[in-house]
């Protein structure tokens, strides 16, 4: 394992960074990062393959990528924790499923793919939305049901979508997004595009029949579908060994190849997704099982400690936390100091607080919005009601 060391320039905090090539969410960076240095990293554990040759454990990265990973993950972590306190102060209602602990899955995936590859997931979608290019303002506004939300306040926590970045949501019913994802892959094959679809689901959804139906079809027609099982080991309140006869989700595709990945290691995820994309474009579907963990309960109404011990949660936080792993890598390679990383986290917190304040200012949707977007206009949908022009409704 060769480490190419080179001390990167650490600018003083007051200077503005040349961040034209920066791809992170935060706007000001008090240090410059290097894109040309290559750092080779080994993943924490080797990959396990099923019906396929697993990729190599060594991954090349750069200081810039490391810093981007850290910054983005810090922002996602901050957003989810802020959502927690917003929920407790009853600004977010209904269901709120938080992603903290699992950030590496999204960060690694985004690093391996383009915005033309499709992603579809279930209801733990806030960070996926952010990873696809959504803004904090759209996120918090949607969570609070305001007009500035990505779905105009009409979707809520479980219905985040971003069409221009090929993010297809955002679905409330467990497992229903998997056939949709195969449909996305079908359309990509139909149009002979060079892109793939990442269909994400959890270990709970892995026992759904429609998943195997969709997998069968995807394999039958060689659709470029990559099924990503985010295995956080608990389906709502039920541990995986109590719900699945075979918790090796990457093997359950039988004839479909699978790969087991350490989902807390962003670089392992990146390598696996790159490998999967190449595979899917040539050979059809592949299953990726991301071994990950969520710190919060299933949703905000679940404390998360009735079916698992606090020791387990804090143990994972200490040993496998994705953010800490990147922090240690950055410090080990002298890319930034501890203080600078803390500053990044502070900046993330500030950005999140500003976004929340702005989101709170956004108004609730107008009453007429109740009736918009039920249908699309065109081919006669104008004619409604008793005289074809009026729709009468009673609001409470």
């Amino acid at each position: 394992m060769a480490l190419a060391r080179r001390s990167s320039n650490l600018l003083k905090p007051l200077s503005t960074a040349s961040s034209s090539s920066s791809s992170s969410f935060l706007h000001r960076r008090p240090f410059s990062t290097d894109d040309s240095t290559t750092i080779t990293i080994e993943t924490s554990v080797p990959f396990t393959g099923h019906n396929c040759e697993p990729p190599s454990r060594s991954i090349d990265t750069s200081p810039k990528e490391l810093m981007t990973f850290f910054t983005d993950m810090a922002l996602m972590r901050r957003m989810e924790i802020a959502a927690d306190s917003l929920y407790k102060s009853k600004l977010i209602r209904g269901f709120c499923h938080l992603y903290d602990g699992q950030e590496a899955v999204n960060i690694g995936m985004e690093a391996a793919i383009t915005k033309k590859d499709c992603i579809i997931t279930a209801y733990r979608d806030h960070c996926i939305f952010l990873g696809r290019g959504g803004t904090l303002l759209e996120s918090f506004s949607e969570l609070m049901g305001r007009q500035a939300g990505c779905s105009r306040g009409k979707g809520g926590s479980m219905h985040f979508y971003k069409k221009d970045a090929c993010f297809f949501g955002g679905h409330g019913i467990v497992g229903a997004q998997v056939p949709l994802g195969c449909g996305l892959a079908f359309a990509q094959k139909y149009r002979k595009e060079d892109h793939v679809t990442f269909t994400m689901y959890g270990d709970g959804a892995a026992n759904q029949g429609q998943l195997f139906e969709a997998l069968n079809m995807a394999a039958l027609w060689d659709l470029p579908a990559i099924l990503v099982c985010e295995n956080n080991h608990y389906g709502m309140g039920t541990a995986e060994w109590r719900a699945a006869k075979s918790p090796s989700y990457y093997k359950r595709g039988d004839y479909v190849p699978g790969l087991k990945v350490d989902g807390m290691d962003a670089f392992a995820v990146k390598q696996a997704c790159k490998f999967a994309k190449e595979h899917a474009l040539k050979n059809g579907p592949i299953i990726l099982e991301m071994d990950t963990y969520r710190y919060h309960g299933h949703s905000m109404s679940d404390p998360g400690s009735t079916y698992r011990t606090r020791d387990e949660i804090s143990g994972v936080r200490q040993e496998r936390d994705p953010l800490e792993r990147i922090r240690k890598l950055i410090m080990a390679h002298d890319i930034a100091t501890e203080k600078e990383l803390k500053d990044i986290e502070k900046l993330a917190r500030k950005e999140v607080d500003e976004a929340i304040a702005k989101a709170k200012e956004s108004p609730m949707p107008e009453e007429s919005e109740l009736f918009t977007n039920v249908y699309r206009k065109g081919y006669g949908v104008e004619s409604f009601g008793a005289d074809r022009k009026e729709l009468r409704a009673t609001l409470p």
Partner: protein
Amino acid sequence: MASIFQRVGAVASLSSNASFDTKKLHLSSRRSLSERKASFVVIRSDAAKMNTGLKKIGGRADQLVTNAVATKPDTSAASTASKPGHELLLFEALREGLEEEMERDQNVCIMGEDVGHYGGSYKVSKGLAPKYGDLRVLDTPIAENAFTGMGIGAAMTGLRPVIEGMNMGFLLLAFNQISNNCGMLHYTSGGQFKIPVVIRGPGGVGRQLGAEHSQRLESYFQSIPGIQMVACSTPYNAKGLMKAAIRSDNPVILFEHVLLYNLKETIPDEEYVLNLEEAEMVRPGEHVTILTYSRMRYHVMQAAKTLVNKGFDPEVIDIRSLKPFDLHTIGNSIKKTHRVIIVEECMRTGGIGASLTAAINENFQDYLDAPIVCLSSQDVPTPYAGTLEEWTVVQPPQIVAAVEQLCR
């Protein structure tokens, strides 16, 4: 085009004497509420905007027939006197519609069980797979939930799949996909995604097919917001509605009937597209309005023959659009006859007839001289025995008796 503007003018005059609550407000659907009184909110689509919308539609297909009156040969484009047209069966008409749309738009594709190599279990897609290839006419495994979801996912990216359920009853397995993802995605995404799918298949009570293969899914699907439902009954409206459904940007469920596939009719050679929300005037009359759809239309027409001999003059309307109801045509008829009979194949509880009764009572209460009579199938699973099956659905003598009693 003239017929469209004529209709708009007629509608405008109607609204002035319509019996709505005086407290209601008028506002354009695109502008926000300026003031609110009491509890009524009315959203009116701006007439000018409606015209431009229709003009755009007309520009694309000048043959959009908005005045589908089957019995008036001089006004509708249905039977242009110059050309005789060609004769075909209903399933061939559906196929013609499908083929024309697939030819016209590369994004239209078919998926379902046995639609490809087998040609469709009712021959609706016969010959299309050799012509368009296996990807455009896709033979799916028997997995309704998954392939319906797949079609909806493909529609999210812009394809226009026509999803066939071999029997409508099988689509119960795909109810989650149809309700949540098909109907609601446009709304929950704030308008980002449109789902231009057509879900079609034969349903209804056949010839001793048994309980599970004789279901009427229109009653289960009718509450799903965001979808449209139409039922075809003749080769002419089958082709027109198929084409309109494919061109519509909304999810449309097209209900066909197992027993109507071999109906023969002469349809025009020219291209035509029907209006999805419009009802069809089958037989104008004066004494009573009979509302029906799909196979019951033929039972009603059979009863109408008997009724005419007995001196009655029923007005028969094939409502065609099950969601939303064409309350305009229905309302005009009720204002003329003041008596309504609904003849449907759905069950008494929670069927299309039940909703239509409620809608008519709500909107046209003042015009009714008698309570609405709704003749529906019995609330039982459809039995296998032929005689029992006959008694489950509404038969012409019952319709005759109901009219006689209503028009005493």
